[in-house]
């Protein structure tokens, strides 16, 4: 085992000891830590999960599988040189986006960073448009202008898809500000990776959210590595507990367990909507692939570590086992869902392949609202230069 993976193991062990803690100024007294092995996770019997119908559970499972198959298909397309630039895969983290986004009401909003495919599918975006965006086609969700890191769908309350680490977090606070300003009972979820927590803009957003009581839940998806640097090598102290310095409630969540994500996010979202209070959660998760496809993934963690997570903590396997034990999933249905998800991903790739690229004339569209709405333009002068 390399020195670096030892770091990681140490970080993971440290996390395990604090995994059941909750805290923050507004927190109820923490429940006694319950070792994971000692019985079923109480999150599984929380009302937000027990209220799910069998069909709803199956649909959550289907979303997990659809995200994974979509990304596996996109990786093949990348390897076939159909996709340019970066491709940051979410494989292994699916339960985080699906769990969180499954709780969204009509006035709840989401913003995330560049590892955004999972959130996009979780909010209901069409995989054809998502794959076409990767292929750089005009039928893409951003007409081929954003790429993998910049998916958006405001109609589904999804505000990106942002490329600069931590840069989206103040925008997430701004979504919450707008909800509060307009008197809407909604909440914003501002996702970031564990690599974002040391960016100044993130701390500025924490401060504003708490100072102004904004209805935002900051979600750290802690997959253990900011690119190739382990948490132990990048971040002093705990990540979630930093919220205490901003007088914000915080919570640590098991991101491998979709029920845990739902059970612990739901009260924080409800509190944001009803009491306009922010919170910070750290969701422990893991990515199986490199930081991006450009990461050979050979320098900072061991293959054994990845395989251990795949074998024991895979969010799809875990949720499948739960649903099988609950009788919500049969072998036939599991097979059918997987086959359909593969077909959907292939169909998306075929759609992307068959779609046209933007033309040179498209390059200067979607830059200015005024240029795109010439009949309503009020300004004079040149907007573009050569």
């Amino acid at each position, binding site marked *: 085992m390399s020195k670096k993976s030892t770091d990681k193991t140490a970080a993971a062990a440290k996390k395990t000891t604090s995994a059941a803690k909750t805290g923050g100024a507004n927190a109820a007294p923490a429940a006694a830590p319950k070792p994971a092995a000692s019985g079923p996770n109480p999150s599984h019997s929380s009302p937000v999960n027990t209220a799910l119908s069998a069909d709803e559970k199956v649909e959550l499972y289907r979303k997990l599988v659809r995200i994974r198959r979509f990304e596996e298909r996109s990786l093949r397309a990348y390897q076939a040189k159909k996709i340019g630039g970066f491709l940051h895969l979410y494989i292994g983290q699916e339960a985080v986006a699906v769990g969180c986004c499954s709780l969204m009401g009509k006035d709840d909003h989401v913003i995330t960073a560049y590892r955004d495919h999972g959130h996009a599918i979780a909010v209901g975006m069409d995989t054809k448009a998502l794959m076409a965006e990767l292929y750089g086609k005009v039928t893409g969700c951003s*007409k081929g202008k954003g790429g993998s890191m910049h998916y958006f769908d405001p109609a589904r309350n999804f505000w990106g898809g942002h490329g600069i680490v931590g840069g989206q977090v103040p*925008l997430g606070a701004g*979504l919450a500000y707008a909800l509060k300003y307009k008197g809407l009972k909604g909440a914003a979820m501002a996702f970031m990776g564990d690599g974002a927590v040391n960016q100044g803009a993130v701390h500025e957003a924490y401060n504003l959210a708490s100072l102004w009581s904004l209805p935002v839940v900051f979600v750290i998806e802690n997959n253990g590595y900011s690119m190739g640097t382990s948490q132990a090598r990048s971040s002093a102290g705990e990540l979630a507990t930093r919220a205490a310095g901003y007088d914000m409630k915080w919570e640590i969540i098991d991101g491998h367990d979709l029920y845990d994500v739902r059970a612990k996010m739901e009260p924080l979202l409800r509190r944001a909507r009803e009491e306009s209070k922010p919170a910070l959660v750290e969701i422990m998760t893991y990515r199986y692939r490199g930081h991006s496809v450009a990461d050979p993934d050979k320098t900072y963690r061991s293959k054994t570590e990845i395989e251990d997570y795949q074998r024991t903590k895979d969010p799809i396997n875990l949720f499948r086992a739960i649903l099988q034990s609950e009788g919500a999933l049969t072998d036939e249905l599991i097979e059918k869902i997987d086959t359909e998800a593969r077909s959907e991903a292939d169909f998306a790739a075929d759609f992307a392949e068959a779609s046209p690229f933007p033309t040179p004339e498209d390059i200067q569209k979607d830059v200015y609202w005024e240029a795109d709405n010439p009949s309503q333009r009020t*300004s004079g002068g040149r907007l573009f230069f050569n």
Partner: protein
Amino acid sequence: MPLITYREALRHAMAEELTRDENVVILGEEVGQFHGAYKVTEGLLEKFGPKRIVDTPISEAGFIGLGVGASMLGVRPVMELMFWSFYSVAFDQILNNAANIRYMSGGQINCPIVIRGPANGGTNVGATHSHTPENILAHHPGVKVVVPSTPYDAKGLLKSAIRDNDPVFVLENTILYGLEGEVPSEEYLIPLGHADVKRAGTDLTIVTYGRPVIQSLAAAQQLQQEHNLSVEIVDLRTIRPLDIDTVLASVRKTHRVLIVEEQRPFCGVGAQLAYMIQNEAFDELDAPIQRLGTVDAPAIYSPPAEIEQLPNSQRILKAALATMGS
């Protein structure tokens, strides 16, 4: 017409737009209880209350990013930078998020924000507080950049900026805040992207914007009286969109051009103007285009030296004579 200051003109613009549109919010450091670091927002908190006039912590990346996010949901934040010099700590929010979000979303999202505040030298505050970033801002497609020189322009342009659906950056000037000018009592707008001929002339065109407009007007008067030179002064008012047609019309009339800007020369607005003028009116030029800007160094503190680092009427006068070949 009533005489009011540049500062009051800006304040009146904000007050009128706050009254007109309930989605307009003023955010910034010391804009409320303190009445504004330069008193531009004085009285607005008392009139519109703390929901509309919001004091922020010293946290430019945070509150500007927050404003960008809020604008995506239809709030129209007008954010004050105490100095535009502080844009550098919010650069990512301004020029990655505000400028790019419409494009990266394939036109699905608008960012109707205004960021305003002073951007000028000449007040002996040294290199960190004297930046004039209109060239850097205007370099980014997706944004609009406004630099008003008079109270009348400041009010009309700021009102248009607040109504604009694209991000607009308004660069004011602390030295002009006390400048008085005639401003009508009745409501008016000045559309962005229209230059204004501040003085008509036949011998030389000075293309300029911001405080150098005022200095150029003084120089032009002296040039007329002492050198019998008729100088036309074109105030760009808006850097992007750029009203190059008004500039070219003046060039076709005078055939000589001096560009004056409170900018360092390298990659400044003047460089862009000179390229466009020679490209589109080459045959109209009787002499090379000349340019007068800030002496190329960080802003010096020493008060007498700073006067000579920046454009001033005497430097403009000399540069005008040089452009005429005399």
